[in-house]
């Protein structure tokens, strides 16, 4: 075997490289080594590059691409009341679907599912499962864990579950009209839920990813809301009414603390809202509200300096306007002061005041209080007012006592709040206002007019002849105005069908809250002395509500009001600690 030997002579130059055949062999060997090394290096680099690529690549992209074509849902923020108590939240739920290509026995699947879902459309499902081109058929969404387990136990091939978000309403039907509802994709379609989609924002998600947004805080207080709903339900039973509605409003900020309309709706069962009897009577309906409108008429006459509270008005004769003759239920046999017109709820007196002010000032005052234009809140547009086409004498007379003009109770409550809060504009809202938030104080009427309205409203409750005397609550200075409005029907007003209402405020020394109660078509019962007038049914209902919600709102019964009730003598200066907190 040949070996290349290099001999280095002592003290001399290195020996020359071998030449010829031996030299070529060595050169070729080096070249091969170099090529092999390069090949190994390239191979390792390829392996290393692949490793780095795999390590850096995200697996979530794969997941997304699988889900993208299947289902998109909406993660919604929670809804809480003004004190942080939960009203609506998202929870995960199983949704059932089928892959028709994997279903072995269609008839078995349909029959067994029908035993769990009695309302299942079997014909439609059988048709869907027969389709050769479909790989995905929704069967039922938003199942309870128990139902999902029952289906799972059937062991039917071709059926599978997908986790989705469903809206849960832990309070049941509480504040159902305000909350609204969502559709099957968890998208808000009515009420405050819709506002969440349009203004607050919801997140489009795949599967069941909960929202990370902060909860939306309503102005409602669910304790107050519950008290109002319960008292209205009691009133419906006591007075055999067809329905009822109630509002509690902060008259300074316009925050709605309670808004109830009975019969109610369950937000978890949106189909209930299709029932005309369950329409939201607070915001989505307009009514001729009757004599509560006299608040506006008297305020208009006072604010325009047409009269003062002591001005005497002759109300002994009926008032004629066109083909209408306006009479009082209990005609006075003497002229009445403006305050007495209010307290005795004289239609003739209200008509005279409107005539004295004239059509222009009457209409302008209603416009100023935003009673003629549509308004909007966070739960949607309020039903637009129905107003006379022209403002002649007959229109301003009927309008003066709340007929011939129909407005939503919430819109009227906001206008009434302006009359009570010193005269600044009130915009009703269902979102909690921050205590330190700056408010736009737009004066609409004179503070003196507001003072006068407060005074006569309080008198209407304390005066033995006041129509609102049954709204008196021991310990709370309550003021209010009754309204008993006939309901229009075919060919005129219905006989013995009325909307009786009571608009109250408390505490009247410095009103903070407005309570508006409406009873629809109450009957004369033993509890109402056989009468349907608001003073007999709506007024005591408002009183019961105030008695319950006062402490919830941090207003303790005051000793002054208690003293007025019991004729006991109290030292007001020593009782400051019992005053409203």
């Amino acid at each position, binding site marked *: 075997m040949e070996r290349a030997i290099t001999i280095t002579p002592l003290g001399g130059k290195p020996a020359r490289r071998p030449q010829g055949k031996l030299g070529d062999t060595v050169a070729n060997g*080096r070249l091969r*080594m170099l090529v092999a*090394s390069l090949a*190994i*290096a390239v191979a*390792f680099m390829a*392996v*290393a590059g692949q*490793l*780095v690529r*795999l*390590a850096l690549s995200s*697996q979530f992209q794969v997941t997304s691409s699988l889900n993208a074509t299947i289902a998109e849902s909406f993660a919604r923020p*929670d809804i809480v009341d003004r004190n942080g*108590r*939960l*009203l609506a*939240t*998202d*929870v*995960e739920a199983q949704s059932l679907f089928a892959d028709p290509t994997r279903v072995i026995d269609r008839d078995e699947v349909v029959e067994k599912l029908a035993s769990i879902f009695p309302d299942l459309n079997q014909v439609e499902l059988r048709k869907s499962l027969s389709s050769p081109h479909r790989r995905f058929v929704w069967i039922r969404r938003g199942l309870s864990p128990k139902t999902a387990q029952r289906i799972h136990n059937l062991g039917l091939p071709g059926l599978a579950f997908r986790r989705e978000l469903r809206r*849960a309403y*832990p*309070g*049941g039907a*509480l504040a159902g009209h305000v909350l609204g509802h969502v559709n099957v994709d968890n998208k808000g379609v009515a009420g405050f839920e819709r506002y969440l989609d349009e203004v607050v924002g919801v997140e489009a998600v795949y599967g*069941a*990813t*909960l929202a990370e947004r902060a909860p939306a805080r309503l102005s409602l207080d*669910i*304790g107050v*809301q*519950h*008290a109002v709903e*319960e008292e209205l339900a009691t009133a419906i039973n006591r007075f055999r009414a067809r329905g009822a509605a109630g509002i509690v409003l902060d008259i300074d900020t316009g925050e709605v603390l309670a808004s109830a309309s009975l019969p109610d709706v369950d937000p978890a069962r949106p189909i209930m809202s299709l029932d005309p009897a369950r329409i939201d009577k607070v915001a989505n309906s307009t009514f001729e509200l009757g004599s509560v409108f006299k608040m506006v008429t008297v305020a208009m006459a006072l604010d325009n300096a047409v009269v003062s509270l002591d001005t005497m008005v002759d109300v002994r004769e009926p008032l004629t306007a066109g083909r209408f003759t306006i009479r009082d239920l209990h005609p006075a046999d003497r002229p009445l002061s403006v305050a007495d017109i209010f307290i005795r709820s004289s239609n003739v007196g209200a008509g005279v005041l409107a005539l004295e002010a004239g059509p222009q000032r009457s209409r302008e005052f209603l416009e100023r209080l935003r009673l003629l234009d549509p308004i909007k809140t966070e739960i949607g547009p309020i039903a637009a007012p129905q107003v006379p086409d022209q403002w002649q004498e007959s229109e301003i007379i009927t309008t003066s006592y709340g007929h011939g003009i129909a407005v939503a109770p919430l819109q009227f409550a906001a206008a009434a709040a302006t009359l009570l809060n010193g005269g600044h504009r009130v915009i009703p809202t269902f979102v909690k206002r921050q205590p330190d938030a700056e408010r736009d104080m737009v004066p609409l009427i004179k503070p003196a007019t507001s003072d006068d309205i407060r005074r006569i409203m309080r008198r209407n409750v304390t005066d033995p002849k006041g129509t609102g005397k049954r709204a008196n609550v*021991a*310990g709370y200075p309550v003021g209010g105005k009754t309204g008993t409005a006939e309901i229009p029907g075919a060919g005129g007003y219905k006989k013995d069908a009325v909307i009786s209402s009571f608009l109250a405020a408390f505490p009247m020394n410095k009103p903070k809250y407005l309570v508006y109660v409406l009873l629809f078509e109450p009957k004369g019962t033993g509890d109402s002395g056989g009468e349907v007038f608001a003073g007999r049914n709506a007024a005591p209902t408002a009183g019961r509500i105030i*008695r*319950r919600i*006062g*402490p*919830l709102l941090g207003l*303790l*019964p*005051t*000793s002054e*009001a*208690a003293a007025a*009730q*019991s004729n006991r003598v*109290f*030292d007001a200066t*020593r*009782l400051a600690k*019992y005053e409203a907190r």
Partner: protein
Amino acid sequence: MRLYIFAALAIALTSAFALYGINYDTRQLERRVQAKERAIKIARRDIAVLKAERAHLGRPERIEPLARAQGLRPATERQLFAGPAEAMANVFSETAQRIARASRGE
């Protein structure tokens, strides 16, 4: 040259092992992250359900009868007194009436 080749091979092999090691660790970490994420998701789901259940159990419709059964009522004007003197007078008055009733054998 040989030294260079051996060194290159050694570096390549070491790099490969290091890369495999890093890749393995990354996979392990990813698995742990995914497990944590799954646990967080399950915990959040459970919290949402518990929150809803707590709200359901604490709804006024349920709490109010329980409170009434405990004898709790909204504050009324009868709980008000003008001050300590009147409060004491009321207490004495009630005590006196009770003593009187007791002396009458009622």
